[in-house]
């Protein structure tokens, strides 16, 4: 095994040991993983605030967009569109298109949150972002269950609060803000998404889904639009992956497939009833 990365040299014994990942251990990892997202949210929140100010937004208008829309790409697009005098209906349509990828996140999270109350799910949906989805689904799969506190941390602490505070900072500080790209903060988002995808690539199907999703997304982005590419990659990648036989190639899995997946599937792909557990009222069992 010498010379191989620790993850690559895992045996079934080590995987089984990792299956005992506790809720607290996973939450600690979630907190540490979220620190990079916080830095990214602050950097780009500042730039958004500055852009909004330069486009003529008042501080209330800029913050209203960060609170009510809470979607970076759509907000940047709206700022540019407003500055160019584009009509509101077109901006609203553009927003719906740019944010349509959230359908995928919401659908992927739905089985995990099915036993959570509707008001809670409604609130969860309000703060669902790329970052919240990526951090929380990795956390749920590590522990094999839903964890509401983990979700709130991923959605609110790492993203909503920093993004909104940075929006205010951007409007107030104005031109004193440096471009986050000069200190490399612009790579945090794609690097974080890639790093979290690696953590989810626990079998052949996941790897094929990730590789196909990435390749299709880039091709469609170049031919059409990046937002469309992400949606098409996210939709078609899993379809191609389902053509591949499932297998226990768990290079990074913290738990046996059925538990880690959150869908209680066996290696043969048959979904079984999950084992009920979890005394914390905020913690549900994945269906």
């Amino acid at each position: 095994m010498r010379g191989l990365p620790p993850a690559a040299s895992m045996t079934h014994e080590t995987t089984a040991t990792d299956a005992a990942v506790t809720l607290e251990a996973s939450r600690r990892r979630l907190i540490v993983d979220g620190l990079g997202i916080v830095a990214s949210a602050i950097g780009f929140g500042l730039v958004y605030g500055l852009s909004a100010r330069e486009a003529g937004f008042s501080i209330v208008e800029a913050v209203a967009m960060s609170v009510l829309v809470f979607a970076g790409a759509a907000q940047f697009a709206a700022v540019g569109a407003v500055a160019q005098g584009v009509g509101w209906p077109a901006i609203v349509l553009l927003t719906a298109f740019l944010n349509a990828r959230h359908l995928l996140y919401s659908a992927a999270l739905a089985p995990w949150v099915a036993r959570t109350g509707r008001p809670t799910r409604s609130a969860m949906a309000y703060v669902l972002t790329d970052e919240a989805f990526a951090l929380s689904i990795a956390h749920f799969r590590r522990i094999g269950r839903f964890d509401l506190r983990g979700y709130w941390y991923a959605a609110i602490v790492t993203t909503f609060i920093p993004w909104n505070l940075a929006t205010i900072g951007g409007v107030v500080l104005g031109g004193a803000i440096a471009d986050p790209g000069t200190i490399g903060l612009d790579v945090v988002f794609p690097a974080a998404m890639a790093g979290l995808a690696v953590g989810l690539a626990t079998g052949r199907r996941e790897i094929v889904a990730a590789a196909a999703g990435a390749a299709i997304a880039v091709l469609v982005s170049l031919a059409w639009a990046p937002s469309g590419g992400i949606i098409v990659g996210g939709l078609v990648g899993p379809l191609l992956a389902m053509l591949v036989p499932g297998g226990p190639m768990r290079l990074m899995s913290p738990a046996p497939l059925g538990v880690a997946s959150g869908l209680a599937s066996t290696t043969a792909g048959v979904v079984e009833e999950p084992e009920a557990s979890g005394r914390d009222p905020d913690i549900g069992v994945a269906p």
Partner: protein
Amino acid sequence: MSLDLVLLAALMGVATYPSRAVPMLAPGIERLPPPVLEYLRLVAPAVLAALAAVYTMVVIGPDGQPEFHVGVEWLAVALCLAVVWWRRNLFLGLAAAVALTATARAVGLV
């Protein structure tokens, strides 16, 4: 202080919320057939990889059209992947990616 765009923000929020909420609030989601649940399980790695790839490899050119991009961001993301795979620590991977990018840009490599 102008408040005109608060209404626009509210309309944008209204346009965004259904995509975030409808699947999560749909009744009976837990009773979907196993192949559909398996599909949904695979959405996460696919869409995260798609986001990473598009944000790394595609930029909007001066003419407003998407363009294929090759740059230090590729190395930075690859370094992050390697660190995450090796150390299983995303924060370390992000720190390495940022350090590489900032260094490369500081010395004028990109």
